[in-house]
């Protein structure tokens, strides 16, 4: 008798994985921190309001509706724990915080579909109230129906920059400007994406045009960004073509594309390898999503940034791999189709990366006084001093001597910046400085977290 597979994450990847497992007669357990299924992009609002799914998800409304509906249809044939945080993995057991207690689950097959979060780099003033990540700004709009300010600037790189600005404008918010850190010329790369996914490229162009028509100033090649304000955001200043610019605003949405949430894979013992495109260490996996640990699969944006459409396919593909590895019937033709589609999306990702490059060079000149690690309140100058005084050139050693990445977020927010700075300071490639090792709990848990009866029984 085989045990129950565990799926972590009920976004597009986790939902499609669950669906495929249920179709094969398995009964997976699906856990997600969020109160409802959908993941990041298809997040549901907290309280029903007058908005339609068209209002919420725009062009992706039908995909959102299909996912929510398909997951609801699995009711009774799987176990689903919403508001359940996976906080530890060890020896084939998962520790999950749900309803105020901790349950230990012995799983047989683990599908990690933990998605991504915003990637940023520190700039002066980035910790001021009024500065949100692009994703955070979007969540405020989607799930709470509120805007992050009354005069908003969007800053960064990546498709989400224009998308969120556009969503805000459509929702009636005052968007003062979009500041793109890449030069305008980078956008010509999108033309290479036309033959692959014409619809997506044209939709992006239409959004940009509508932003312009709506009176939103678009600036390209923005650098040396400084966010100003005494207690909250008052203005943003930057340099562009050698000229100084400044704009008053009371809300800033900022993001430099996304970063994969890989900590669970780390605790599961998966081997990692450096990925040049994402400039991050990612769990090694085959085209189906098998990691280096038998029975552990990784899928969706948590395995490397590829977007929601890829996540749906990758989730299903990983589930087929799990079935095959269990010796169950699985649809090999379907698996091949999914892999081909994923490869095509992968080629498009390379185009997007060229059109929206990550400004890694920012970290070379970051001012000593700029906060690098927000949780532990460590600035760039302190990090530089720690690198020099202790002679460290590896990221975990830097964490040990400087406290960077040691706080509540465990380096989710500052890890990329710390790695880039360490690479610059030690004249190494980013791939040579190592990656932050993850520790449980994956997110903070209350000290009084109780052990449940199940857990004692399992011992």
């Amino acid at each position, binding site marked *: 008798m085989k045990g129950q597979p565990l799926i972590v994450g009920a976004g597009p990847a986790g939902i499609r994985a669950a669906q495929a497992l249920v179709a094969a007669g398995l009964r997976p357990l699906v856990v997600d921190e969020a109160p409802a299924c959908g993941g990041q992009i298809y997040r549901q609002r907290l309280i029903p309001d007058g908005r339609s799914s068209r209002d919420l998800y725009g062009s992706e409304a039908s995909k959102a509706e299909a996912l929510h509906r398909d997951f609801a249809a699995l009711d009774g044939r799987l176990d689903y724990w919403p508001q359940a945080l996976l906080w530890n993995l060890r020896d084939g057991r998962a520790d999950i915080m749900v309803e105020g207690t*901790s349950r230990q689950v012995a799983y047989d097959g683990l599908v990690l579909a933990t998605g991504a979060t915003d990637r940023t780099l520190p700039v002066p003033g980035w910790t001021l109230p009024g500065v949100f990540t692009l994703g955070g700004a979007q969540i405020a709009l989607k799930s709470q129906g509120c805007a992050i300010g009354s005069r908003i600037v969007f800053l960064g790189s990546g498709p989400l920059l224009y998308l969120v600005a556009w969503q805000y404008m459509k929702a009636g918010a005052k968007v003062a400007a979009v500041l793109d850190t890449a030069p305008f010329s980078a956008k010509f790369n999108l033309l290479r994406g036309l033959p692959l996914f014409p619809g997506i490229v044209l939709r992006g162009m239409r959004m940009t045009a509508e932003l312009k028509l709506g009176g939103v100033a678009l600036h390209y090649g923005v650098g040396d960004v400084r966010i100003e304000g005494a207690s909250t955001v008052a203005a943003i200043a930057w340099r562009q073509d050698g000229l100084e610019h400044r704009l008053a605003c009371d809300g800033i949405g900022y993001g430099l594309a996304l970063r994969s949430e890989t900590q669970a894979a780390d605790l599961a013992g998966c081997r990692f390898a450096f990925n040049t495109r994402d400039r991050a260490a990612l769990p090694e996996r085959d085209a189906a999503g098998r990691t280096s640990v038998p029975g552990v699969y990784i899928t969706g944006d948590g395995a490397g940034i590829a977007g929601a459409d890829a996540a749906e396919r990758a989730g299903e593909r990983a589930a087929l791999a799990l079935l095959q590895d269990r010796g169950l019937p699985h649809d090999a033709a379907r698996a091949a189709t999914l892999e081909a589609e994923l490869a095509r999306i992968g080629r498009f990702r390379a185009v997007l990366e060229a059109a929206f490059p990550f400004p890694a060079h920012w970290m070379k000149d970051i001012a000593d006084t700029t906060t690098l690690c927000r949780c532990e309140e460590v600035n760039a100058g302190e990090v530089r001093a720690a690198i020099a005084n202790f002679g460290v050139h590896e990221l975990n050693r830097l964490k*040990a*001597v400087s406290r960077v990445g040691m706080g509540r977020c465990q380096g989710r927010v500052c890890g990329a910046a710390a790695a880039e700075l360490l690479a610059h300071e030690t004249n190494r490639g980013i791939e040579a400085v190592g990656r932050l090792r993850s520790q449980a709990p994956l997110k903070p*848990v209350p*000290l*009084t977290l109780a*052990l449940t009866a199940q857990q004692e029984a399992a011992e």
Partner: protein
Amino acid sequence: MSRRLDVDVAIIGGGLVGSSAALALRGLGFSVALLDKGFCGAQASGVNYGGVRRQGRPVEQLPLSQRAHAVWPRLKALIGIDGEFLRSGHLKLARNEADMASLEVYAAEVAEQGLDLELIGHNGLRERFGWIGDGVVGASFCAGDGHANPRLVSTGFAAAARRAGVEVLENTPVEGVTRDGEGFALEAAGNLTLRARFVINSAGAWAGPFAESFGEPVPLSRIYPSMVVTEPIEQMMSVNIGMEGGGIYARQVERGNIVVGGERALPLADPDFSRPRGDGALAIMNNAAALFPALRHAQAIRFWSGTEGAMPDKNPVIGPSGTTPGLIHAFGFTGAGFQIAPGVGEVLAELVRDGQTQTPIAAFSIGRFAGISARTDAGSGAGQNQEPQHSGELRP
């Protein structure tokens, strides 16, 4: 590419023991190579709880512990940083009358050693340490003990050794040591060959095979103490806390985080690494919240563990090899090497220079295991209490 190096002293292992020995030896004018298989201070010495405590040690450790005690306040001068060393005092709690009685016995036994222990009753505790919850009947206070930041201290000693001219070779595992004429030949990763007149075996939990290869097998096992740290909270815990009989220890760092230890972790597939078990960490957390009411609304932000070498009698092996002149051992600190390591470093330097030391170390001789054919046990984690606790039966 092969490389050759000729030094007076080769040190295997750049933990706090090896790097403090390296620094002391440079101070005496020796040429020194310090080799570590990973990064100096990344194992037990850099991830431990940070207790700088003499109280509770077996009597035979106290002279060495007192010697180290004199080094801690001089860190700034010695390695350029204070390592966040705080002479806060160490308060060892008793849960019941029997535990209080054994604290009293210990205090009487070490009365001549200069620890200046103060026994505190229930009412005294209430008055002076009101933040400690119920369920404690009394305590023993050692005002001169304290705590420090192991991440900084251990890395700091290695960095200071490098600045003083020690050849620090990281990511360079020593793969073999042989006696060679008047000295030793060491083979290390990266095709490195080292010649040295003296070798110090300070390879921590990995020291066993080196001793065994010179005909001195030791019953060294591995233990993995579990640590939990909370988010920063308001300053309240003014002293380093221990518990008679073990089970829990806690301190509050300058930033406000509380570090709590107790329980045991388990090794991962690679037994050089370990992580706390989920249920073990929860037990520590619940115990801490029960003992310190102010923690009832705090959150735990991280768990960790480390690999420590442990001896069955809880005493380390320190001193010259019984079989091989020029070889000196220093390992097996059984959960309590952080505080004494800077003293051990000085003693090791004296052993190299003079062949002897004024500090009594006879109890730590490797000779006490002669005749046992004990093999190094790569260990399940079963062992003794992490912070060796004074306990009636085990004291000689």
